[in-house]
C-alpha cells in the first residue's frame, strides 16, 4: 500500500505544521497562490527566512510551484494536509464525546456536593445505585443520561 512513503510524508507534514509561521503561510495560500514576495509581506522576517519555510512546506508536499516562470507562485496542495487532518479529526471526535459526558457528570457531582456540603468526597456521591438520576432532574441542563449512552453522531 506504499505505507513507507506515506509515513515519511506524514512525518514531514506534522513537522511542517508545527511552526506558526508556516501555518500562517498555508492559511494565506488557502485563499490563492502567491509569490515569495507576496508571502513575505505580512511577516516581520526576511525573504530568505520565508524561503526557508517554503522549502520545508514544499518538502512536505504541502505546497507546490505554479507555472508562471517569472513570479514562481506557490500554491497549496490539499492532499497531505487532509491526511494529517483525518487523524486529528477522528481523535478529536472521540474526545469531544468524552468531554460531553464529563460535563454532565461534573454537573451532577456539583449538585450532589452542594446538597451534602463540601467536605464529602465526590466518589461517594456517584456510587452505583445512588439516586443521582433523580438529583440530575433538578437541573436538566445538558440532560444526557450517562448510561446507556445515546448515539448522537453515528458516522465516525
Amino acid at each position, binding site marked *: 500500500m506504499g505505507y513507507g512513503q*506515506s*509515513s515519511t510524508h*506524514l*512525518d514531514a507534514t*506534522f513537522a511542517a*505544521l*508545527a511552526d506558526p509561521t508556516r501555518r500562517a503561510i498555508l492559511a494565506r495560500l*488557502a*485563499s*490563492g*497562490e*502567491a509569490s515569495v514576495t507576496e508571502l513575505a509581506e505580512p511577516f516581520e522576517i526576511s525573504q530568505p527566512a520565508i524561503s526557508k519555510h517554503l522549502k520545508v512546506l514544499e518538502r512536505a508536499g504541502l505546497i507546490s510551484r505554479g507555472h*508562471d516562470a517569472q513570479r514562481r507562485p506557490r*500554491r*497549496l496542495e*490539499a492532499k497531505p*494536509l*487532509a*491526511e494529517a*487532518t*483525518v*487523524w*486529528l479529526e*477522528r*481523535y*478529536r*471526535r*472521540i*474526545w*469531544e*464525546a*468524552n*468531554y*460531553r*459526558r*464529563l*460535563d*454532565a*457528570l*461534573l*454537573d451532577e*457531582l*456539583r449538585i450532589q*456536593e452542594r446538597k451534602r456540603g463540601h467536605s464529602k*468526597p*465526590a*466518589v461517594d456521591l*456517584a*456510587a*452505583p445505585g445512588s439516586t443521582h438520576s433523580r438529583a440530575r432532574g433538578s437541573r436538566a441542563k*445538558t440532560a444526557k443520561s*450517562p*448510561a*446507556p*449512552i*445515546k*448515539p*448522537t*453522531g453515528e458516522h*465516525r
Partner: protein
Amino acid sequence: MKDTLKMTTGGDREIVMTRSLDAPRRLVFDAFTKPELVKRWLLGPDGWSMPVCEIDLRVGGRYRYVWRRDRDGTEMGMGGVFREVVVPERTVATEKFDEAWYSGEALVTTILVEREGKTVVTQTMMFDSRETRDAVMKSGMESGVARSYDRLEEMLASLPAQGVEKGSRK
C-alpha cells in the same frame, strides 16, 4: 454553554488538547482518577462501555482500561504506569494499547488549572518516536480519507477568495 475542545500539534511528536470544564479542580481531578467516575465518561465513541477500569494512583502505580463495544462484544484494552502524580493538579503517565497497532508508548501529561471555579484541562500526548506517531496516524487514516478531502474542500471553498484553481489570480 459548554466549551469546545481545542486540539493542536506541538513539536513534531505531540498532540495537545485543551478543554475548559465548569467545575472546581478537585472534582475534575476525581473524575479523571477515580475508577467509578472515569467509567462513566471515558468511553470513546458512542456505543462503547468500560467494563474494566483500575487505577493505582501513585508514582510507579499502574492503570488498566478495557472498553467493550456493546453491539458485538469487541474489546480494546490499554494501560500504563504513572510517572508523576500531584493531586489535584497534574499527572504524567505512559499509555500503551494492547493491540499491536503501534509499537512503543505515548507519554500523556494532564494538567488542571482552576480559574474562577472553572478548570482548564490540558493534555499533551507525546509519542516516543516519530515512527510511533506515524503508525498511529496511519491507523487513523484507514477510515474516511475521502470524507476529509470533502471537508477540506468545503473549508477552502468557504474562504472569501476562491483562488486555488490555477491561474485564477493572474
